[in-house]
């Protein structure tokens, strides 16, 4: 019987500076010129919304973007360049946050071991559970508001300490 492939914790594959560099490119291109993520943590708001994409391959996990609903709406307005700010449909906000997760996920996938596949973006209040300690998170602010980007190993993936 051959041993199952063991998934290295994300912290051995990726650091927060790399995730932030990817996010900087995404923010400049999609959110707008001069729009930046400031890597300074803020307390999480009482309720957050998230969007995520799954990566499946030698490394299995998800890339998750979380922020307050109002922040997600403001991001949507920026992506759509809505001037003056338009009334946004909830589907547009999910769609926009999902696309941010999708583009972040595609670029994170590029620096992880491959070949791997990227899933379709999903959105909601409850992203997939992170395996404790197996995550790389950028705690940031956008326009002074809480926003996190988390690259996290899948809870079901075979990990080193499980198979030892």
């Amino acid at each position, binding site marked *: 019987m051959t041993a199952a492939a063991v998934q290295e914790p994300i912290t051995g594959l990726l650091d927060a500076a790399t995730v932030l560099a990817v996010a900087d*490119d*995404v923010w*400049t*291109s*999609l959110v707008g010129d001069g729009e930046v993520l400031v890597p300074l943590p803020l307390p999480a708001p009482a309720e957050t919304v998230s969007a995520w994409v799954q990566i499946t391959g030698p490394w299995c996990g998800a890339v998750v973007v979380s922020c307050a609903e109002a922040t997600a709406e403001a991001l*949507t307005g920026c*992506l*759509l*360049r809505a001037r003056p700010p338009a009334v946004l449909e909830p*589907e*547009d906000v999910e*769609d*926009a946050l*999902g*696309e941010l997760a*999708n*583009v972040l*996920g*595609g*670029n994170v*996938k*590029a620096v992880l071991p*491959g*070949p791997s596949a*990227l*899933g*379709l*973006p999903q959105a909601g209040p409850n992203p997939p559970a992170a395996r404790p300690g197996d995550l790389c998170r950028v705690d940031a602010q956008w326009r002074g508001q809480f926003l996190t980007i988390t690259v996290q190993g899948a809870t079901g993936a075979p990990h080193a300490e499980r198979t030892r």
Partner: protein
Amino acid sequence: MKILVTDDSRVMRQIVIRTLRQAGYDDHEIIQAADGREALQLVGSEQPDLVLSDWNMPEMSGIECLQALRASGSQIPFGFVTSEGSPEMREKAASAGALFLIAKPFTEETFRDALDGVLA
């Protein structure tokens, strides 16, 4: 010319269309599809001159759409605009007959570099 923009994200379709305009391609007619299957139908009914397509989509992916077009004999110019730009995906896209692959995030310059030879 008529350009078919295909992406399951309405927001991303708007971003692609805006970037086309900013890159100077503002005198082309734009039509939209939400997945590969709809794109395939619109290529038949609307006869666009170029397809710009996402890769990962429900119903039918961009690469499946391209393969179906080529299998049916269509040689319509086809390019990807996708969140993944690995060498493997670029090779797969080129092998299937795509002219280019624009990776997200993109800029107006990226669009001009890819499209000038196609839309000139």
